[in-house]
């Protein structure tokens, strides 16, 4: 079992000795965490293990007390979600940051509209781009038109739209915080298939999940956290599903 990624090139995201203390309790106790390009990392652990704090540090929502973060080999500091988005990190929370009363197209381009003169939107360009983005996304099969309102979509379809949006903006790292917690089994499988397919395009993902069975199929590496520390980090070929269950339950 090893925590060090390949030596030849620097990892996409490298966090070293990251520490965050809340009221005397270390939510993150000198955590080191790497994500390689084109890698899906399963971030596991019980409630209160520190997963959410780590995710929030990665997305710039929480600034750590100490430790360093580097992105593609360069040291970086992230103070908010815009900073992380500028680097190419997209965090998809359960509410997936979509507006239900707007169409899929308008959601994909929300805040980043394609505009022409005087800030007027290029409707056709946006429609075509969103149709193109949605094409071939199995997890959103059933979305009949990119002009459909997001409020009419199922939970899995919404997650897929949020991911498709991140793909459209050429994000390099997706952080998915419990993406399947509200989904039915079939939707979960479809969503994980989609995330797996994106790896082929060089996209990295951090998958925070309780869904070990499904996550085991697509993750390249697993990091188990407990009480603010990394208790285990292993590639899939080094660890079996049974061992993972043990580590997660032991914390």
């Amino acid at each position: 079992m090893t925590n060090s990624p390949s030596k030849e090139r620097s990892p996409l995201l490298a966090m070293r000795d990251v520490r965050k203390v809340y009221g005397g309790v270390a939510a993150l106790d000198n955590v080191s965490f790497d994500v390689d390009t084109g890698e899906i990392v399963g971030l596991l652990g019980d409630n209160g293990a520190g997963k959410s704090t780590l995710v929030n540090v990665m997305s710039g929502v929480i600034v750590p007390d100490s430790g360093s973060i580097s992105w593609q080999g360069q040291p970086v500091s992230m103070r908010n979600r815009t900073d992380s988005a500028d680097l190419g990190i997209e965090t998809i929370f359960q509410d997936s940051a979509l507006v239900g009363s707007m169409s899929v197209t308008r959601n994909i381009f929300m805040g980043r509209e394609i505009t022409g003169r005087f800030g007027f939107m290029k409707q056709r360009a946006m429609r075509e781009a969103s149709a193109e983005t949605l094409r071939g996304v199995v997890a959103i099969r059933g979305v009949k038109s990119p002009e459909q309102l997001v409020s009419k979509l199922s939970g899995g379809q919404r997650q897929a739209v949020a991911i498709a949006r991140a793909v459209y903006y050429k994000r390099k790292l997706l952080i998915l915080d419990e993406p399947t917690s509200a989904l039915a089994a079939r939707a979960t499988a479809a969503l994980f298939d989609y995330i797996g397919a994106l790896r082929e395009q060089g996209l990295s993902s951090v998958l925070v999940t309780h869904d070990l069975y499904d996550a085991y199929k697509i993750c390249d590496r697993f990091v188990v956290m407990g009480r603010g520390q990394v208790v285990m980090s292993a590639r899939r070929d080094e660890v079996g599903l049974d061992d993972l269950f043990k580590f997660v339950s032991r914390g």
Partner: protein
Amino acid sequence: MTSGQERLLIEEGTEAADDKSAGDAEVSSTERVKWFSLIARLSPERRYRVSQSALDFAVLFVVIQVASIVAGVIWPNSFAYTNGANVLTALEAIPLLGITAIGVGVLMIAGEFDLSVGANFIFASIVMAMLANQGWPVFVAALVALAIGCGIGLLNGLITLWFRIPSLITTLGTTGIWTAATLYVHGAASQTFNVSGAFATLTSGSIGDFPAEMFWMIGLGVFAWAFLQRHRIGNHVFAVGGNARSANATGISVRKAKLIAFGFAGTMAAFAGVLAAARVSTITPGGETDLPLQVIGACVIGGTALMGGSGTVLGMALGAALLYWIEDVLLLLGAPGFYLDAFVGGLIIVAAALYAVTKQRRAS
């Protein structure tokens, strides 16, 4: 299966029904509903693009108007709907309500309210009349009125956003402030405002039987539509009203979008005030107290979401026209005008209750 997927499947089912040949004897209930709804008859691609309920509402509006006109022709004495004076009054009055409603409606889409539009309407127009009577060029005085309206709106926005207080409370407070300001700068007496020349033609002239106000409402409506549906910032207005947190997460400035909507609502209220002053030549301090309730009612009738995120300009304008129609019919039938206030008040409560109930249903 989640309810969303079920809904999708149901929609797919009706889609299949669409493709059935016309010779099919059996007509399903969904098809009958579809026959009634204009939007549903469009192609699916187009259907999603058409503004939610405006078109269906327009159909309802036309039906009501035709019925009223028929009734007016049959009973010209007891129901003088088609009487020339009645029609003219309607064409002059609807735009004042409609222009204010479009401003407030845009703000409602952004998820905020403005109760101070009535006080704004009076204050802006009375300052304009005072300046014009002091010898200011009337066009400049009118621009000052619009600037005041915009300023009142922006101030509502700044207070609301800066202190994070509900805009209903902010604008309830500023209503008092600007009503008092009117009395402070002018006093309680009515202010006269006589217009002539180009200004009179532009504000209170007419083309045929159509008064200038009607054209202003259409022009401003097209402007508001282009802003909301075609402009980047208009898209942000929908986003912040629909889900401010999500909008913020994608980098939209929630404050900027809302502030622009606040400014727009204030400007439109002052614009209506200018047109009203030019038409009737007098401004009464303390008037227009039921305007805020009426324009919110007009927006709600026209399908604007009470809690923000959706609405159409066509719906707002038609909502204003429908509200005036109710007032007019009550008047023609000899019923007291205050019935309208009760109707509008009840309507807003019903709309809010419906929203709350559907939200609870969805949550459970």
